[in-house]
């Protein structure tokens, strides 16, 4: 007899992802869907897609959804949550969306302790628009707008959103993870679950930053991209749980 262990979660629509081969967006989508399945809140959850490669996220999740203007997902989520505090709202955002144009909105949603959850994909690049520098691009890294490599003097430094956000009092859960190994994937799932629990339990704002690859714009195959992430992004963006007011699950 075959016992089913792992399959497409119910909270995914089953529609094929539009991501490039090996792109980590897909892994994180699945994790979110698993968490929502496990919490049994699919029918009460609203997804706010960003603008970025994951602009189509509203099609991939099997729940009510919309797209926020670039960077404004936390504001959109705030509007939803304030109007319907009985529902659960999460935003899914890239590093251009969240750390560049959306800086004010994420900082203030966090500071207000808005009871929403944000999954933040840090791939150190603008994927959707073709590989321009993101605020999180590493120093020296070549992108289509830093053709000579990112130069701190001209282009500024990599931006550490978790480090900023840990100073916001409304944050209930905050962690940085990666998904380059099956073990990391499990850890990320746990973090995502806590970020949702922060909302479900009404404690406050929850955010998980997932360091991710963009094989296409990094100009690497998917496997090399993961290696590059390990070697270059981890030193700049140390993993860890920055804030945890959720406590351990029973």
């Amino acid at each position, binding site marked *: 007899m*075959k016992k089913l262990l792992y399959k497409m979660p119910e909270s995914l629509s089953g529609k094929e992802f539009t991501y490039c081969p*090996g*792109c980590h967006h897909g*892994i994180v989508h699945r994790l979110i869907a698993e968490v929502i399945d496990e919490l049994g809140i699919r029918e009460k959850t609203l997804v706010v897609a960003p603008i970025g490669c994951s602009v189509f996220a509203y099609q991939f999740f099997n729940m009510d959804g919309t797209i926020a203007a670039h960077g404004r997902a936390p504001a959109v989520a705030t509007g939803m949550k304030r109007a319907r505090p009985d529902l659960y709202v999460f935003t899914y955002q890239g590093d251009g969306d969240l750390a560049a144009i959306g800086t004010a909105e994420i900082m203030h949603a966090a500071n207000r302790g808005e009871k929403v959850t944000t999954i933040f994909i840090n791939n150190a690049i603008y994927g959707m628009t073709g590989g321009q520098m993101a605020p999180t691009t590493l120093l020296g890294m070549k992108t289509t707008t830093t053709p000579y490599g990112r130069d701190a003097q001209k282009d500024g430094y990599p931006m550490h959103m978790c480090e900023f956000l840990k100073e916001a009092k409304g944050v209930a859960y905050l962690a940085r993870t990666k*998904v380059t190994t099956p073990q990391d994937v499990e850890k990320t799932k746990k973090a995502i679950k806590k970020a949702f629990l922060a909302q479900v339990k009404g404690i406050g704002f929850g955010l998980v930053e997932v360091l991710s690859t963009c094989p296409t714009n990094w100009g690497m195959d998917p496997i090399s991209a*993961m290696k590059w992430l390990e070697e270059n992004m981890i030193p700049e963006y140390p993993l860890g749980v920055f804030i945890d007011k959720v406590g351990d699950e029973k």
Partner: protein
Amino acid sequence: MPKVKGYIEIDQERCKGCGLCIKACPTKVIDFSESFNSKGYHPAEAKYLDRCIACGFCYRMCPDVCITVYREE
């Protein structure tokens, strides 16, 4: 300890041939298919299914949710 016997299915039409599952599988069950799918990729194929231990690593790493994992009981 009796070895757990696993079984996986890969939705090859959905697969984009990224190879993440191949890298993740501890028992080297999976490899690329020689043929193309209709997207033009060489999809992953469970070539040595008998080695599968149902660990789910392939499932966990697959960015396109192509893999279903079962345990033979």
